[in-house]
């Protein structure tokens, strides 16, 4: 147990190098990501569907001449996917070498925090928690889960043929 705590602790600390996070809402829950990964925030535009893609990949849109894939973050995290409307928001994020659009309900805050404010992830049996969540924040009695983005894109399968 203490080992896991240690690892978690280190991961948490590693993530809180930056002190600014963007908080956003999906469904009834709140999440946040390191602001350093975020390039811009855009409104929703209808995406061009990609054939045979996982359900959480909504398609691609044109971002000033670049083809940007849109990932329904709620669906990716295991929540029921919602039909996006004009009120939805796309967070354009940099994940490694790629730029990806994350579909969320709305952006709420920019939080400035220090490492000690991040608490370890509650020990719940959830795939989502294990894969994506790096910790939780308590802000104004809201629980905001800190998300790491590196797993968001689907794993590339090599062409079998």
């Amino acid at each position, binding site marked *: 147990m203490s080992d896991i705590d240690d690892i978690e602790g280190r991961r948490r600390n590693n993530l809180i190098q930056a002190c600014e996070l963007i908080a956003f809402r999906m469904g009834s829950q709140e999440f946040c990501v390191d602001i350093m990964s975020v390039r811009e925030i855009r409104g929703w535009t209808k995406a*061009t569907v990609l054939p045979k893609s996982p359900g959480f990949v909504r398609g691609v849109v044109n971002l000033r001449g670049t083809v940007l894939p849109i990932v329904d973050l709620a669906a990716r995290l295991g929540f029921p996917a919602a039909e996006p409307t004009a009120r939805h928001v796309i967070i354009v994020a940099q994940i490694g070498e790629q730029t990806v659009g994350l579909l969320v309900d709305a952006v709420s805050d920019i939080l400035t925090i220090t490492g000690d404010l991040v608490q370890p992830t509650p020990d719940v049996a959830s795939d989502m928690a294990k894969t994506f969540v790096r910790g939780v924040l308590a802000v104004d009695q809201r629980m905001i889960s800190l998300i790491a983005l590196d797993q968001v894109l689907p794993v590339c399968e090599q062409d079998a043929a």
Partner: protein
Amino acid sequence: MDAMAAIKQTFFQECEEQLGELEIGLLLIQDGDSDPETVNAVFRAVHSIKGGAGAFNLDELVHFAHVFESALDHLRAGRLVASGDVLKIMLRAADMLADVVRAARDGGSTDVTRRDALAAELRALDPDAASDDFVGGDKESSADDSDSFEPVQICFNDFEDGSQNESPPSGNLFNIRFSPKPDLYAKANETALLLRELSHLGAMEVTCDVSRLPMLDELDPEGSYLSWTIALRTDRDEAAIREVFEFVEWDCELDVALGGVAAAREDAALDDLIEKMQASVEAELAAPRAPPGATQSAAAGAPGSPVQASSNSAAVKADSGKSSPATIRVDLDRVDRLINLVGELVINQAMLTQQMLEAGLARGSGVANGLDELEQLTREIQDSVMAIRAQPVKSVFQRMPRLVREVAAMTGKSVRLTTEGENTEVDKTVIERLADPLTHMIRNAIDHGLESPERRAAEGKPEEGLVHLSALHRSGRIVIEIADDGAGIDRSRVKSLAASKGLIAADAPLSDEEIDNLIFLPGFSTASTVSDISGRGVGMDVVRRSIQALGGRISIRSKPRQGSTFTMSLPLTLAVLDGMVVTVAGETLVVPLTAIIETLQPKSAAVHGFGGDTRVIVIRDQFVPLIDVGQELDFRSGIADPCKSVVLLVESEGHIHSALLVDAILGQRQVVIKSLEANYQHVHGIAAATILGDGRVALILDVDAVVTGARAAPPAFEQFCAAEG
């Protein structure tokens, strides 16, 4: 990067060019070219490399280049005959030189044994070899060689200015008599400067003898009447003195005597002397400025004239094989950026047109006409800009002769490579990715296609096998063929091997062409031993995939005992595409125009079922498989009604025809290709994406993948799996 490092980079770039020229020239000579300029060019290439290498202290390179250069010097001077054997040595030396250059550039090491052996072979070509006592090894050099290896050679004294004059005169006294001839001035030498030089050697007294100076009206302005006596006290030796005059040695009378008649001057006459000296130097400076130097006839009269004649004729002669349109060097980044910007321009122009149309602008109105012109102009700009980045395939083809030599040597086969169409141009983005597949196919052709010399002789073929590499433009694409005159595809072996690997049913009725194309299937290799040079069983499937990744196609034709021909067809650029815009299940797609043979509106009578959900359509008495694109791409689950759809007859890999079913055709357009992989990943059935006039992303169909996918598993089967899974 500091300046010298930048120049070093330039040097290595130049080396690559020179190495290319070297190989081309040697091959020409091997083919019988007897033009002296070809040999000269070859010599200059190695000479140039040696010169630059010396400046950067790349000793190994300097040494090997020097040995090579010497041999080439014998060749160009006619002392060595350009026989087949000699050329073979030269070509191998050229390969070795390339290795040494690259080792110098990348900090690697060379095969010293091979290098020394080649150096010895080159030295052995020296017609005077018998008289030289070489010990072998590259560090040893003869007396002749050592001259050129001295790092600094300036034929002027390298003294610090002035300091000598301050110290008390020491050393020996030399008596120097110097009488310049008219020719000295013809070379723009000046006595004053020489005397100044001399003064740096020590303490000097100069007397000018003006006794031969005639009266003004008899004075020949180009004559020389002055001579000087110089008493020089220096601790340098006679050689150092003569060195000052080294260059004018033949154009003057020079006596240097040690000690002796240093004119004993009385102090009283010293000032007098200095005055005279000054005056003579001034006269000297003034005189030759008028018509300076000899006339043309004087220079021509000297034994140097044959040199001039031959140089002039060399100048008149055009340099064959070198086209000389004016060129400039441009940073590749700038070109890439320009191309991207023009791509954006095209998209914006299309969007503007779209919006104008939606705004209800009448055709024929001023704005609509203006937009048409704008589209015309944009298209022209795009064509011009793409042409900037277009390069001849020569740069890739040029690497092949060496590859052929190496593979032939390794497999013990005798091979001749011929090329055609090296000047065919294609975008730089395509060229860069051509090298690997081309290399693989040539290796394959030699390793597997061509028979051993013995077997060829037994078959009545010439022992030397032929590999022909060609490139040409066809239907807006570039077609590259690699043909060999080897054994051809062993069809029974291929078929049984494919069956044994479960790739086909053992009794499947396959046409010859279909059998030949089996070699492209993954996991297929007929090599019973994994041949090291064909790269550990890297098969043709990898080659095909890299060609396909370029948007190209590859196929094979073969005749047993006669040989095989691989044909690659590639788009001219990876940046733009001519496409047909269609709708499929409500989605807009772009189909590459080059794949489309024709479009038609099917009649229900022409469509027939064929087992399960497979359908075929009759087109001009031929049965063509019907592929429902919407279903293939999972855009819809049901199948489309052909009579409410449009059929695109397409040709894919291996000249296979298929009928693609789409909802409607929206039009034809040239689109800018945007990568899907950049921010996402490869999607089966989709080659890339583009942005249409309405600003939305449209996917570009990968025709080959769709056709292959449709044939592999019938849609019904996939649906079944999906339902179950």
